[in-house]
């Protein structure tokens, strides 16, 4: 608590920010040491939402664990489902059908939209722009109804399965999604008019919480926070997984790495995601969504009820100690989640449950870099910077 206080002229004040504070969106805590209005030292604290996801992974079988991944990043559960099953599939050495890959891209991009929308709403709300919150929730509700029709749930989707997805798209999904992506840019324009050239918004975010590209890499920032510093790195481009090489899109980058650039990058990413969604819908292949491998995917319900083989396959997959059993080995698989690099490191001992599951959460490293962005700034910037990082407590603490 001492040291680094040469600048302190008056009395130093310690301000405890969180863990229950409206701008922390959950359970973040920052202890600020202030000299008047300027921040001398910021100490973020994590762990208030620690849930034991990694330990739980050693006790659930591979398909059961999908349910847990929903609850880790509750802004974009579908991306988490996707990243996890991809890791398991790569460990197994299988590749899912083309249609399934496209459906997964579709859902991952829609959930990127959902994530950025919620981020936009809450970040703006923190800086006093309440209308933006209502506007973005209006759009998010439309996505919720698409998710609900596809997966059966608004938030906790658990849509993917090892070797496929829970079910094919519903009839009329294409029209719903197309309607959404045609109207969405117009809705986003409303926000642009409200914020992008807004004097207050610019004053509060421009030059605030800036970080250089080198520091960003050293701190392990990824996703929009890294791209805002000017590094055009996107895992979807650098290591294309699941047919991402078949769609075209741009990787928006910023220049200053400040809160305003992070905002612009995310806004542009939403437009790019709409483009990806349209391309995916245009080129959606026909065929089955699940792998025809009875050792990995569940048989059709009619098969399970109507034939003894189907019943046996069904039974074998759901039985404890059977089911999906990757060979002994380990694998690290990274995907570009809306927040950055979401990695799953799975160690298998050849049984039906993982020996160790490690989740590499983007938010954890973003939150760590917070003091670097805050120190030397004003106390009122804290909210703006924290908002621009989009730290999700569930993912931070796991």
């Amino acid at each position: 608590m001492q040291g680094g206080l040469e600048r302190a002229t008056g009395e130093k004040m310690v301000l405890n920010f969180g863990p229950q504070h409206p701008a922390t969106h959950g359970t973040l805590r920052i202890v600020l040491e202030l000299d008047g209005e300027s921040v001398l030292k910021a100490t973020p604290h994590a762990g208030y939402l620690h849930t034991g996801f990694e330990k739980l992974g050693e006790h659930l079988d591979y398909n059961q664990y999908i349910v847990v991944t929903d609850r880790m990043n509750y802004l974009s559960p579908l991306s988490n489902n996707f990243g996890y099953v991809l890791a398991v599939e790569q460990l197994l050495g299988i590749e899912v059908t083309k249609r399934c890959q496209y459906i997964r891209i579709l859902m991952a991009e829609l959930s990127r939209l959902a994530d950025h929308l919620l981020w936009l709403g809450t970040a703006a709300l923190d800086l006093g722009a309440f209308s933006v919150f209502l506007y973005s929730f209006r759009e998010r509700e439309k996505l919720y109804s698409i998710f609900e029709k596809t997966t059966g749930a608004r938030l906790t989707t658990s849509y993917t399965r090892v070797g496929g997805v829970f079910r094919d798209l519903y009839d009329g999904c294409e029209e719903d999604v197309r309607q959404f992506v045609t109207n969405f840019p117009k809705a986003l324009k409303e926000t642009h008019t409200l914020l992008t050239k807004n004097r207050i918004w610019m004053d509060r975010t421009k030059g605030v919480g800036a970080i250089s590209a080198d520091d960003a890499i050293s701190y392990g920032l990824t996703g929009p926070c890294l791209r805002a510093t000017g590094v055009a790195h996107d895992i979807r481009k650098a290591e294309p997984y699941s047919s991402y090489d078949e769609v075209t899109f741009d990787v928006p980058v910023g220049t200053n790495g400040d809160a305003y650039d992070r905002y612009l990058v995310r806004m542009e990413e939403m437009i790019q995601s709409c483009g990806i969604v349209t391309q995916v819908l245009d080129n959606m292949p026909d065929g089955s969504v699940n792998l025809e491998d009875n050792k990995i995917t569940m048989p059709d319900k009619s098969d399970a009820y109507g034939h003894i083989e189907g019943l046996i396959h069904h039974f074998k997959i759901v039985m404890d100690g059977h089911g999906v059993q990757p060979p002994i080995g380990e694998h690290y698989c990274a995907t570009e989640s809306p927040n950055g690099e979401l990695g799953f490191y799975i160690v298998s001992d050849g049984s039906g449950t993982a020996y160790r599951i490690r989740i590499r959460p983007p938010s954890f490293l973003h939150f760590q870099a917070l003091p670097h962005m805050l120190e030397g700034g004003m106390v009122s910037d804290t909210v703006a910077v924290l908002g621009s990082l989009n730290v999700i407590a569930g993912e931070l603490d796991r």
Partner: protein
Amino acid sequence: MSEENQVEEQPKPLILQKLEANHADALLAHDETRGTVVVVVRKEQAYAVLEYLKTDPELAYTFLVDVTAVDNSQMESELMQFDYARFMVVYQLYSYQGQCRARVKVPVHESDLNIPSVTSLWQGANWLERETYDMFGINFEGHPDLRRILMPDDFEGHPLRKDYPLRGRGERERFNFDKQNV
């Protein structure tokens, strides 16, 4: 004949060539799985190897993706391979320049849980190492601030060790509200 040619056609990844040339004594084992090079290095030289991987201009693994550990106490095959070292500290690296990944693993014996910290190489290592300390009890020497991060300060034990029960040892029922500093 043709088989031999095929073997020769597969060039050794650059990182392995360079490590074998410069840090051959540090390497315990190496492997390549699904495009990622995995090297197991001796604890004593771990810092030197990681520093080399980061600073070598041709390799430039400038991005430390993750630091974690695995408790191998129930994985006989791994245990035997590395002289019954209970823990394996795992570093995931990425090179923006070469757009490739590497994984460095360091066996750590239970009798000596110290391992040099890499916070001086990557600022991002700070919390990752703290978490590994919190969850496994690995002691990172030279770390500026090695405290628990996810669990409360007065917590006992290391939850991700295999001998720690999933449902805990009663911490979630026993509480002393006065003692805990809010």
